[in-house]
């Protein structure tokens, strides 16, 4: 792994700090000065200590365009979630259990580990599919009702809508 410059490190630290401070406020649900002061100190310490770890994104992620896509992604995701949950409900409640399970593989164009994780999680959370593993750019997906074993077709069925947006975010 290449050495990061101080600037990169510092910017990531600030991002980390900000992120944690938001989480802190959510935890404390309080804007009292005592809580904020303590929070600033604690989150600073933690972000300092975890600076080498928190490398999944850069402060660039905060640019408005990406945030917009994030929100859009959220809606797409929730829609998919609800639809496929209804699908699973149907399967579960059908006495004959209409399933045809199997594992298929798809390829993703995403490059960073973090974005691949988000994609995999999204696939997992949309019922009917479950990411079993990622090997480099290949995702192995357990599909409760396999419609095709062709990777490209499967990609279209399962991941395309998510990947499109994710490519824009990351």
């Amino acid at each position, binding site marked *: *792994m290449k050495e990061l410059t101080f600037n990169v490190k510092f910017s990531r630290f600030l991002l980390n700090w900000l992120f944690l401070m938001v*989480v802190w*406020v*959510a*935890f404390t*649900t*309080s804007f009292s000065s005592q809580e904020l002061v303590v929070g600033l100190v604690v989150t600073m310490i933690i972000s300092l200590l975890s600076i*080498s*770890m928190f490398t999944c994104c850069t402060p660039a992620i905060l640019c408005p365009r990406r945030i917009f896509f994030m929100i859009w992604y959220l809606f797409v995701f929730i829609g998919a*979630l*609800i639809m496929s*949950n209804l699908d*699973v*409900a149907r*399967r*579960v*409640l059908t006495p004959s*259990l209409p*399933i*045809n*399970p*199997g*594992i*298929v*593989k798809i390829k993703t164009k995403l490059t960073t580990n973090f974005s691949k*994780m988000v994609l*995999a*999680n*999204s696939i*997992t*959370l*949309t*019922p*009917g*599919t*479950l*990411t*079993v*593993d990622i*090997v480099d750019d*290949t995702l*192995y997906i*357990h599909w*409760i009702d*396999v419609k095709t*074993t062709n990777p490209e077709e499967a990609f279209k069925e399962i991941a395309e809508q998510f990947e499109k947006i994710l490519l824009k975010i990351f």
Partner: protein
Amino acid sequence: MNTAYDIIGAILILIGSIFLFLGGLGIFRMPDVYNRLQAGTKATTLGGMSTILGIGFLMVEDYWGWLVKAIIIVIFIAFSNPISSHALARAMYKRKHYPLIMSKDENMDAYREVADKNQNKEETI
């Protein structure tokens, strides 16, 4: 039934709890561990998120902290549950507990070709 918050909350809770139930039922009914993961943990994820958010909405007028904290929990669940499901599925596969395949298609288990390899390179932090 006083405010919109209450209504949203009630609906979310109701939907959520039904999915929680369905998740449990899915686990009960599905034939193998992968399908149980499919049906069970994910339905409960949605159900749990929905229920928790619903409570947050119900109480948000009392104290805004309820909603904030509910969201925090929901976000955590949204991130953690797929990971744990995935980890379980992978672990079961690595234990050579292969998934149930109903159809006769040869390609129904695409993972078998790479499963036994320790394919992840050492990745430092």
